[in-house]
């Protein structure tokens, strides 16, 4: 017998609280977008009031002064490269670990899981030294190559591939298909849901990354959106205030669009975390 759920007084109170929570969550976004359409003096002197006059000058300024298109391009190059490589290489490793019983597989997988426990801060300095010696500092691939495959994604994809029946794979083998063919023709298409989740996590992680670009991309022509915004904020305090709000809105926009388009996969990608 399921508990009967009715619209009672207590559920009205619950909805009231939920709406209140939603307003608290949404207000800062509203505040950001609202201020991005104001003139500079109004942002400084009446930041909480609605714009008395709507202007796009902040948005125009962003493209003129901050070179927003270049920042977008740099961020996209890095994020798309990482997303593509990571989904592909993590899926390859996940397939091998899920379905090919090569000697040493279980030990390798146990080792992989153990590496997840190592806090990232340990790698910060020595990886920089390695990049410095390789002469990669200042280049995109200093960010892309180390992020080209990740244990966490291998783990997520493996959990999914394990559920694909072995009979399917054996049947393909009997028909003469090799592992490469099986991977591209069968495993990849079947794993679409988990690959979307992995791709979302990689893309958002890379797009929002700050410390990586801060360490490795030290010339303005290589800056990403996050680093560009930071530099823009700190370079001339008080000035360019219109452009700051406009650029924050523009940086957040692509993510919000992707998020709303793929929200179920997105929440699942995060919630998967709890089921391990």
């Amino acid at each position, binding site marked *: 017998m399921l508990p009967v759920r009715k619209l009672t007084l207590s559920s009205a109170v619950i909805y009231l609280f939920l709406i209140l929570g939603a307003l608290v969550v949404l207000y800062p976004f509203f505040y950001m977008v609202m201020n991005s359409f104001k003139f500079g003096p109004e942002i400084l002197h009446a930041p909480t009031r609605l714009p008395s006059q709507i202007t796009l000058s902040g948005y125009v300024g962003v493209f003129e002064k901050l070179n927003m298109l270049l920042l977008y391009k740099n961020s996209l190059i890095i994020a798309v490269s990482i997303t593509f490589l990571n989904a592909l290489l993590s899926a390859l490793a996940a397939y091998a670990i899920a379905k090919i*019983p090569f000697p040493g597989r279980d030990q390798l997988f146990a080792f992989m899981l153990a590496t997840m426990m190592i806090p990232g801060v340990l790698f910060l300095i020595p990886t920089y030294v390695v990049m410095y010696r390789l002469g990669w500092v200042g280049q995109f691939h200093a960010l892309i190559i180390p992020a080209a495959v990740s244990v966490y994604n291998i783990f997520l994809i493996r959990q999914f591939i394990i559920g694909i029946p072995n009979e399917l794979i054996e049947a393909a083998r009997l028909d003469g298909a090799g592992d490469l063919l099986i991977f591209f023709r069968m495993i990849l298409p079947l794993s679409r849901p988990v690959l979307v989740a992995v791709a979302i996590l990689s893309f958002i992680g890379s797009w929002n990354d*700050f410390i990586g670009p801060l360490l490795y991309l030290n010339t303005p022509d290589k800056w990403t959106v996050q680093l560009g915004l930071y530099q823009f904020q700190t370079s001339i305090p008080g000035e360019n205030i219109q452009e700051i709000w406009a650029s924050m809105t523009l940086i957040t926009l692509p993510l919000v669009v992707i998020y709303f388009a793929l929200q179920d996969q997105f929440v699942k990608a995060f919630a998967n975390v709890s089921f391990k």
Partner: protein
Amino acid sequence: MSNAVMQASHAGAEINKLQRFKARARQYIWGYLFVAPWVLLYIAFGLYPLILSFYLTFFDYSFVRPDDYIFVGVGNWIRGVTDPLFWKGLVNIFYNQSIFITLNLGIGLLTAVMLYKTVYLGRIFRTIYFMPVVTSVVVLMAIGNFIASPQGPLQSMLMEAGILKTGIFWKFSSWLPMPIIAVINAWKWFGVSTVILLAGLYSIDTTYYEAASIDGGTGPQQFYYITLPQLRPQIFFILVLNVINGLQMFTEVFTLGYDVFGGPSNQAITPVLYLYAQAFDRSNIGYASTLGLLLALVIALLTIIQFRLIPSE
């Protein structure tokens, strides 16, 4: 059956076995090839840096003179353990995290229970609560900074209500930055806790509640004796995750515009900010490596304590 036939069939079985072995070996080679990218990249950007990091802790090393390694023994370790700024960073982080984790778990639990009890619109609320999770730390800290500033909506509201006399420049206060960053972070991250706890709530067998209702258990009693214990794995997971990530906080304080030592009274210094300062401001690479290892030890210690204190099954 003649001897010759038996020998022939035996030889056939041998050939069969050999073929099967070859087929399996071919498959294994693909297996090794498929995991090779991870193995190679982890050796280059995981294992090697880890060994290098440990090695560097015994040297005075700087990018200013990249070919000189000056051996200092355990000097960096002693300096790290006795460095007041490293400890100040740890104290700040504990101060920050105790508030953040309380808020994060509290709000997460509250919203998860409320969403569990609603029939309609749950998905819309979940979507909204998850929005800050998707947004970058740089953007959210900038917005949070403006909203909490003396000209921002919060303080002006409090001033109009007469609660505040003058604006508070909290970034320069010696004790306010950490709690305010904790509140901004709780606002950013509680959506993850909500989703994890909500999944936990849905996995609880409803017959527990029915049995408790029959025995006359009240709502709060049911929450305390059924819901909370049943959610233990999820709560434990959130705690471990928060401690590991929280201790490595950097971008939050860095983008607020403090100097690399976290302001005049180091009110916003964190261990990773201090490590950054030593490495990239002072170019003390060996010492920064030591600080990284010390912090990793603290994190490992806390994680072990958590595993001991909270049996998660």
